[in-house]
């Protein structure tokens, strides 16, 4: 009987986006230090928050690259640096081979059409006084893509339907919509300029469980349809595994492990990655009863005064004396699998 068929999960990999070889984004030695100042008249810098501390990675065209880690690890700051919302302290960011720090304002504006962002909070990222149609139409107006109001409106309707919303929503205000619908509007706005690259900063973490899957599937469909490249920033490791081709794990401003998605989850090598994965419960009591629930001790130290040597050493089960002084380099342990640990 067709009515009773349970929603079986297909094990087959359905993602069909071809991933190219040439990098669309290349981040080299990125550092972002935020100064902490003291004094009103003679302001002086007393310390620095090392939000991002020398990370390098590249993202290939058509690829979804996951950046995971706990709060304060620097994943969002990395995204903001790529968007040029922060001026990096050190390091370079190349978009299609061009160093974006060297662009003048006009060139940067042109670049901003190609790089868009979807924010975490669908409540604060939409202007409550603007209608949905104006929110989605604004980027086109600002960039002079569609100066004609009627054509712009038609494009807004099209974007709304692409994102699974009724075009009549264009006349509504954000407060009339649910969280999931608002997030679809945020996605529509990001698509308005036909970008090549979208930074998704925790796009589903504010949504309810049953709505999360809808938005995840939408992001996947759009990726396949428009050949988009995503930088997917999230703390939810299950969502990241579902969506990403390659994943980098961050801890206190550094990348500790980077590998192909399934390889990272099936064979985590860095002790932090292992602890992180062990902490995530799986919705299956049978499996859970067999898993070992070892808990990582301690908390993430302050990025103002990070531990010497390997930043993870105070919490690390494998730490030896040398870890206090030696900063581990990211090295390729297997083809494509990079780990920053001297003890593995």
């Amino acid at each position, binding site marked *: 009987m067709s009515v009773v068929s*349970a*929603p079986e999960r297909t094990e087959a990999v359905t993602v069909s986006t071809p991933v190219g070889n040439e990098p669309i984004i290349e981040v080299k030695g990125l550092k972002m230090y935020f100064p902490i100042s003291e004094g009103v008249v003679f302001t002086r810098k007393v310390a620095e928050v090392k939000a991002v501390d020398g990370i390098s990675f590249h993202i290939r065209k058509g690829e979804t690259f996951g950046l995971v880690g706990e709060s304060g690890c620097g994943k969002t700051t990395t995204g903001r640096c790529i968007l040029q919302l922060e001026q990096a302290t050190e390091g370079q960011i190349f978009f299609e081979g061009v160093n974006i720090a060297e662009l003048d304002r006009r060139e940067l504006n042109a670049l901003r059409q190609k790089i868009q962002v979807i924010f975490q909070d669908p409540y604060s990222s939409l202007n409550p006084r603007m209608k949905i149609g104006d929110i989605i139409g604004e980027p086109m107006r600002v960039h002079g893509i569609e100066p004609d109001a009627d054509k712009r409106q038609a494009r807004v309707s099209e974007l709304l339907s692409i994102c699974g919303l009724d075009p009549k929503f264009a006349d509504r205000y954000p407060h009339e919509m649910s969280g999931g619908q608002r997030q679809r509007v945020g996605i529509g706005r990001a698509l308005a300029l036909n970008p090549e690259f979208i930074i998704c900063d925790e796009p589903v973490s504010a949504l309810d469980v*049953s709505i999360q899957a809808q938005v995840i599937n939408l992001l996947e469909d759009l990726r396949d349809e428009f050949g988009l490249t995503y930088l997917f920033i999230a703390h939810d490791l299950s969502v990241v595994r579902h969506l990403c081709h390659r994943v980098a794990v961050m801890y206190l401003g550094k990348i500790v492990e980077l590998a192909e998605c399934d390889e990272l989850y099936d064979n985590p090598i860095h002790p932090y990655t292992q602890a992180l994965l062990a902490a*995530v419960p799986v*919705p299956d009591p049978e499996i859970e009863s067999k898993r070992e629930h070892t808990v990582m001790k301690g908390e993430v130290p302050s990025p103002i005064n990070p531990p010497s040597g390997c930043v993870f050493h105070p919490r690390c089960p494998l730490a030896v004396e040398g870890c206090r002084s030696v900063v581990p380099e990211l090295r390729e342990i297997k083809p494509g699998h990079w780990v920053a640990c001297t003890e593995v």
Partner: protein
Amino acid sequence: MAKLLELEDLKTQFFTTAGTVKAVDGVSYDVEKGETVGIVGESGCGKSVSALSILRLIPDPPGKIVGGKILFMGRNLLELSDVEIRKVRGHDIAMVFQEPMTSLNPVLTIGRQITETLEHHLGIEREEADARAVELLGLVGISDAERRLKQYPHHFSGGMRQRVMIAMALSCEPRLIIADEPTTALDVTIQAQILELMKDLTRRLGVALIIITHNLGVVARYADRVNVMYAGKIVEKGTARQIYHNPSHPYTLGLLASVPRLDHKRGTKLVPIVGQPPDLTLLDQGCAFRPRCRFAVERCTREIPPLEEVGDGQYSACWQKDKLSQPVRAAS
């Protein structure tokens, strides 16, 4: 076995300008001594309101418990006077809230917040309470307790604050702890620390635990029995194994198929539940899940399905439950 807590047909409603919200609409469940019961559901399904109703913490107005019984060790909590229920709160039944940032008083030291409960409920002297507070912080894994007790909540990280909340909850040796989304605001590794701590302490001290969460993984890892709530009602209940391996309500089935799992390969297809949770002021005489249900038939629009046993202590509120569970059983 004697039930520690029994909810019978609990109804809590909010009278708002937009209409009457039936936040909890005829909910019955029980908790046995020392066991861990999970309540799962999405925001607005009534899981928190049902828990707050147990301790009569519903703001009135606009809210009101309009019907049902809450039997705690044989006593109906709804019939107690205000003075009597205050003796139950924090003493026999303690709560751990979601937001460790807002549930502690920012202008009192941590020590004072713990000793206040002790002095109030146990009537012990300040010095004895101080000593007990040191002991409690040690119990929840906060080192250097004497110094920490003199500090204020802003000196503590989120995880540490939640440990303080647990210490406060345990302070009067309650029979039952209600944890409302206790780890939702925390990072995964801290979440694991807090949940392991709660499991360890409740098992060791024989305290029963109601854990309210939207996270299916947390429930699978920690709960003995599970109640799934949707739109103010329990739609399915059973042991954790029954619920996860043999779901017999379309909503449970839908939830399980829609969450990405850590142990599933990349790109495994997710099957979302279509539509959105209903507006609780606009419910009709039919099943509230019907507009999103793939199995709905004509009867679902007319009558609300009752929660009925599908076998072996597992209950489902669905007209199609028999047709639903067979193929799943056969498949597993």
